[in-house]
């Protein structure tokens, strides 16, 4: 299923975390359609999709998280 710009732009750029439950992959189109019917399912699907997307992204071992712990 093709992701259109109408889906992609709001998902990436709405204020604060409006994006968080919106999908940014191929199944986003159907996700939006089912949101009203089953928001719980949609939200869990979005978390899973993000996990799948990040799983494909390789990060060298030496790269540490970007936050700092100040003691």
């Amino acid at each position: 299923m093709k992701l259109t710009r109408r889906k992609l732009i709001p998902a990436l750029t709405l204020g604060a975390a409006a994006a968080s439950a919106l999908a940014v992959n191929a199944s986003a189109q159907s996700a939006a359609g089912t949101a009203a019917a089953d928001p719980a399912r949609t939200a869990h699907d979005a978390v899973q999709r993000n996990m799948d997307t990040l799983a494909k992204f390789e990060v060298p071992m030496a790269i540490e998280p970007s936050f700092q712990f100040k003691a």
Partner: protein
Amino acid sequence: MTNDVFFAPIPELNARLKKHEFSAEELVKAFGARLESLGPRYNALALPLTKVALARAKDVDKEIKRERYRGPLQGIPFGAKDLLSFAGHPTTWGAKPYATQTFEETATVLGKLDDTGALLIGKLSMVELAGGGGYRIAGASLTGPGLNPWDVTRWSGGSSSGPASAVAAGLVPFALGSETSGSIITPAAFCGVTGLRPTYGLVSRHGAMALSWTLDKIGPICRSAEDCGLVLHEISGGDSNDPGSAGKSFYFAPQFARKPAEMKIGFAAVDMDWADPELRPALDAAMKTLREMGATLVETKLPDYPWGALINTIIGAEGASVFEPLISSGKVNELADPSQAEGLKANLTIPAAQYLKAMRVRTLVQRSFRELFENVDLLVAPARYGVAPQVSEPLDGSSAPSRPNPASAGMHSLIPAANLAGLPAISFPCGFAGGLPVGLQLVGPSFRENSLLAVAIEYQKRTEWHKRHPSV
């Protein structure tokens, strides 16, 4: 008091106060009455504070009478997004579960503004929990959907809905908003005002609702870029109470930044294809103005990362941790948008390894931006690729007609990308499409707010878009 006062820039109001054309007390009364009568029309007002401000205004007037000047914000009324605590008064975070919440301490930024003599006349509405669970409807707020003063059937944008619509409608001279990913830039663009998102860590968040500790920023929403600079000058600075504080101050001095004519500004031509067709004339004209200012526009490519997955994972994991007590108590279900409630619950299941991976990729993102800014001084892009949507429309755009994707990504992910890197941005009006404002966005390297402001100020010297206001 004449209508022009309600849309006057900060320096003009301050000058007229000093000339005793009106007093701070009169200014507070005029703006306070306007905010209380018109604020509800746009669902912009969360809590009126005119009475509190009036008491403070009397002190300010005494100071001005004695010619004890504190700076350009002295005697200027303002509003603040209702995620900033103001001691002894409700701070709702825009959400029903927190409708009666009060704090004993005032947020650092509000304390700083009080020190300048600025006068808080109201708390302004916001998307509930700043949209922390992911919202799909404009009505995701304790105060109802933020309505756009240019057309009340349109959304004001979020999550700083009230600050943007109140400034646009002349209900306050300026306001404080906050941004985790888009919450200043978006409503500023939709409402036709100027919004500045500072570099992460430049402005203290002590006393503000947390959504994402590593992404949250507080910034001004104003009538002009100059006003944004004046406000940022006062609210910036280190704060040991904010663990994310960079310990840096901002001195508003755009005259010492590199001149726009000496700047290379990165853009993506394909952005015009991403933008809705009705926006293109305004965006084209804005790019032409930048060229006329002498800036060199350079075709630039945004680094390629999974922006949506990164920002959603980080906001999701941090937000779920912040609001875990709300989720476990079941009160999360009192939120106005079921998608928010379910989003927060689902985000509790994000694995630690996924969050850490997103944060590690973020390290690469920051490196990529550092490399990018070796070649250009700033980036420019449409602040939004469409005008404010109808309030009744789902915010995921599913009701809008679809067009095929352009060939490349351009800058359309600039909001999440620059937020992940902690970079500053400014959105300012650059025209209208179908009677609704269109905004242009500039992004710069960390702590280069003066560069952003220098370009935006020069742009606003050459155009009148920021001076337009809706019929109220």
